[in-house]
């Protein structure tokens, strides 16, 4: 018999104890208690993290939903999985600075320059080796990121890191970005993931990753504009050289960063800026560049446009590097920014169609707290809208969410993460691989195409085979009903009668228990039920 969600809820409703924690705030707020406590736990695990592992739902219910959410909001308070820490320790590049990475893993271009400086002949084999080696840091970073999504206890932190990396997107295959990424994720994104928005924005603005990706490192005051300083080392200046070793000649305005700063990082596209604002901001950020000897931020007064700027109708009275800082202040505190960021967070945590009232409340918290991301996220994930029936299972998983939730649900210990990274590429969501500054879309339509569903189905079988070989397979096979075990693990809180029947008929004639188990896993991972969270 197929039961609808409604009857399931009614069945459970009578058994419910008074809701505690976050679910209770929604009753206090006068809203209907729309989810059972079990569903509320599932919702929290699917939205504040990459899906439940076996036993997680019960754990969250025991702990209390509010207490779990509160702990997740303070990742440093959660004891990290020691197994994960051992794993991460093996990735030696994770702790290195951009400067160290620059020396240790030079791109082929830099390696060639080095050889030429040393006066030796070009060693092409060594150059090829250097080119390959320069990808090691981003490979380790990718594996670490996936390992964290799968195994970190600090799940909300991982979700926020993913959110901000996507919001402040950079593309690993653009030039030297891959050598800046490690520091970018660690010291910019992760450090401020639940912190203050202005700090995050300022940190991004000075990050070599963003300066390189959006070309600002090459932007200089236009010909004829007054400059804030003289080029250093004038005496040694040659044609085509700015006088600073390791600096490429920068000779004009590039407005790429200025535009995306307002359109994508802060105000949003309807946020009320004009082309004049874009040009003014671009001028203000001239001189914000990269010291290519060290791979670190550098302000160069000699490239900085010294003309007074007006941005969004306000005169910017600071000079030099403070000019950019003042603009970042202005943008971070602008009401359009509060709204834009809030709406994006609500879309991520609640629904593709963000409920207007919730966006309003989140934006007002953003303004009142001066951009405290933790406060805004707390408001969103404890709101009645978050625990509403409309929001329950309303999101379609992105490829990363789908893969991670598969591995977590099945509780698989993936020793080599590289095949999964390849799978993400095939599913069109490679880590650090979004080329446009918009990052990846966060709505169902973008991921729900026929082709994508087929690719997921194909991968489901591979995951099922690989995943059921290990201890999880043994555990399930030794249980009384392996198929039921699979459904419980992968789809807790979800009506699975239909799926169970389908699995039975597909597994008909398959005598080997392992084969039946693989069929159950493969079909469940490929099912529409499992595409949702």
């Amino acid at each position: 018999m197929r039961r609808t969600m409604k009857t399931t809820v009614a069945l459970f409703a009578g058994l419910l104890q008074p809701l505690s924690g976050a679910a209770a705030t929604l009753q206090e707020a006068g809203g209907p208690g729309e989810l059972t406590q079990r569903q509320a736990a599932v919702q929290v695990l699917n939205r504040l993290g990459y899906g439940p592992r076996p036993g997680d739902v019960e754990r969250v219910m025991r702990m209390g939903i509010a207490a779990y959410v509160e702990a997740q909001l303070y990742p440093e308070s959660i004891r990290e999985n020691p197994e994960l820490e051992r794993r991460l320790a093996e990735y030696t590049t994770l702790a290195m600075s951009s400067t160290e990475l620059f020396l240790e893993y030079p791109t082929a271009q830099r390696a060639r320059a080095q050889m030429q400086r040393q006066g030796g002949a070009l060693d092409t084999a060594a150059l090829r080796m250097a080119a390959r080696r320069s990808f090691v840091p981003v490979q380790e970073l990718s594996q670490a990121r996936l390992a964290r999504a799968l195994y970190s206890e600090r799940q909300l932190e991982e979700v926020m890191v993913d959110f901000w990396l996507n919001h402040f997107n950079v593309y690993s295959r653009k030039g030297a970005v891959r050598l800046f990424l490690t520091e970018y994720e660690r010291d910019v994104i992760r450090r401020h993931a639940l912190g203050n928005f202005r700090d995050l924005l300022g940190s991004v603005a000075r990050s070599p990753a963003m300066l390189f990706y959006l070309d600002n490192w090459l932007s200089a005051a236009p010909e004829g504009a007054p400059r804030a300083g003289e080029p250093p080392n004038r005496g040694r200046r040659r044609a085509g050289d700015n006088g600073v070793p390791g600096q490429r000649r920068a000779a004009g305005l590039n407005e790429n960063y200025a535009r995306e700063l307002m359109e994508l990082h802060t105000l949003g596209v309807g946020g009320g800026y004009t082309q004049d604002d874009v040009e003014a901001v671009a001028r203000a950020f001239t001189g914000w560049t990269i010291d290519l000897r060290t791979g670190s931020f550098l302000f160069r007064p000699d490239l900085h446009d010294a003309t007074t700027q007006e941005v969004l109708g306000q005169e910017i009275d600071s000079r030099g590097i403070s000019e950019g800082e003042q603009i970042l202040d202005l943008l971070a505190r602008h009401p359009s920014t509060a709204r834009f960021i809030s709406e994006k967070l609500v879309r991520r945590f609640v629904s593709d169609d963000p409920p207007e009232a919730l966006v309003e409340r989140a934006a007002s918290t953003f303004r009142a707290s001066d951009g405290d991301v933790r406060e805004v996220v707390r408001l969103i994930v404890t709101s009645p809208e978050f625990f509403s029936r409309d929001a329950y299972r309303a999101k379609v998983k992105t490829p990363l969410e789908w893969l991670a939730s598969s591995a977590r649900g099945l509780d698989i210990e993936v020793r080599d993460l590289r095949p999964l990274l390849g799978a993400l590429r095939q599913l069109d969501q490679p880590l650090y691989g979004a080329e446009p500054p918009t990052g990846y879309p966060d709505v169902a339509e973008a991921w729900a195409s026929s082709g994508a569903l087929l690719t997921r189905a194909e991968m489901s079988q591979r995951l099922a085979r690989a995943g059921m070989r290990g201890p999880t397979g043994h555990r399930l096979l030794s249980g009384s009903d392996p198929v039921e075990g699979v459904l419980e693990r992968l789809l807790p809180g979800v009506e699975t009668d239909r799926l169970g029947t389908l699995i039975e008929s597909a597994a008909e004639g398959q005598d080997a228990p392992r084969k039946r188990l693989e069929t159950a896993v493969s079909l469940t991972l490929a099912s529409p039920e499992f595409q949702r969270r």
Partner: protein
Amino acid sequence: MRRRVFLKSGALALVSFGLTPGFVWRTVQAEPARRRKVLVCIFQRGAVDGLNMLVPFAEPSYYRMRPRIAVPQPGAREGAALDLDGRFALHPALAPIKDLYERGLLAAVHAVGSPSATRSHFDAQYFMETAAPDLKSVRDGWLNRALAASSISDPEGHSYLRAVAMSERLPVTLKGDEAALAISNLESFMRGPPGGLESFEALYDEDSGDAVLGGPGRDAGAAIKLLRENDPRRYEASAEYPRSPFGTSLLEIAQLIKADVGVEVAFADVGGWDTHVNQGGAQGQLAARLRDFGGGIAAFCADLGDRMEDVLVITMSEFGRTARENGNAGTDHGHANCMFLIGGGVRGGTIYGEWPGLEPEQLYEGRDLALTTDFRDIFAEALSGHLGIEKLDPVFPRYQVNRAKFFGLMG
């Protein structure tokens, strides 16, 4: 009807695709005389520099504004642009398509684009794909709406492969109420789900009750069946495509067309145009991308041969780039751009559109090529002239299509 042979040489013309398909899709069978028209859209994502693609070499200001990246005039000793009409010339990397122009099969439109002032890639692409500049509320793509307006109204007459995009994700252009498919790779698509097509179909049947995922899931199953019954991969290419994602996309579109599986519209992306830094002139970054682009289109036309009588290719890009080169020997986001139309029905060998000039006072906002033709007029003319769509208003929200403004692009 004019018949013009697309093939370059007589030898190639002997190559025949008269293989009898093992399965003939039933409406095709019902109207054997009717050859299906196909519209192929190519999106140059990232904003191609139209002024270096179709070079206005007669404009002295072009060379003044682009000291490092201008393409040399026709007749120059090295890297000369390929003269088309004494005023405009193709980038030398586009040599493979010059021949199509000379034979009257390729038309160019310059100073064309979106009237929206946005210089955001994201927005401009969205506006072009929805054909609704500055109307964010429009969610579906113009090509999807065109399918809805298409004169073939019998729903049973539509193939599941009526609309295909050669990509993993469906582009906005094809999103909407009409079924459309994203196929990133024909071979793996046809292999289908490993557990067997039947169980996949059961997963996504009506009982799944999933309003978002059910449709795409069911379409996938039906499309695989159709392809298996009439395998397009039997049709080997008779021309050499660039070995690139774009080349492969076009090759597979050609196979689908040859296999007669009911494709009406096809879509391919080609990227790498956002040349803010070191764009290059006759050689370099942009030249390499244009070689892929032009080589792909030329191979597609040669490969399809006579079938190009029924095919129209339109190329588009979200906006042009600044008329002046920037400080990094690149170009920033601009305004109007250039489009190509290629096909047997095109009145080619001509460059259409009013040229606004490149003198400082003629530039849009003092920096970009000004717009004289709305891209929607080109889309509308193509839909009307090629697909025979008469009701154009529903395809272009809040836009009055004026047939009097049509250039007569389609012969």
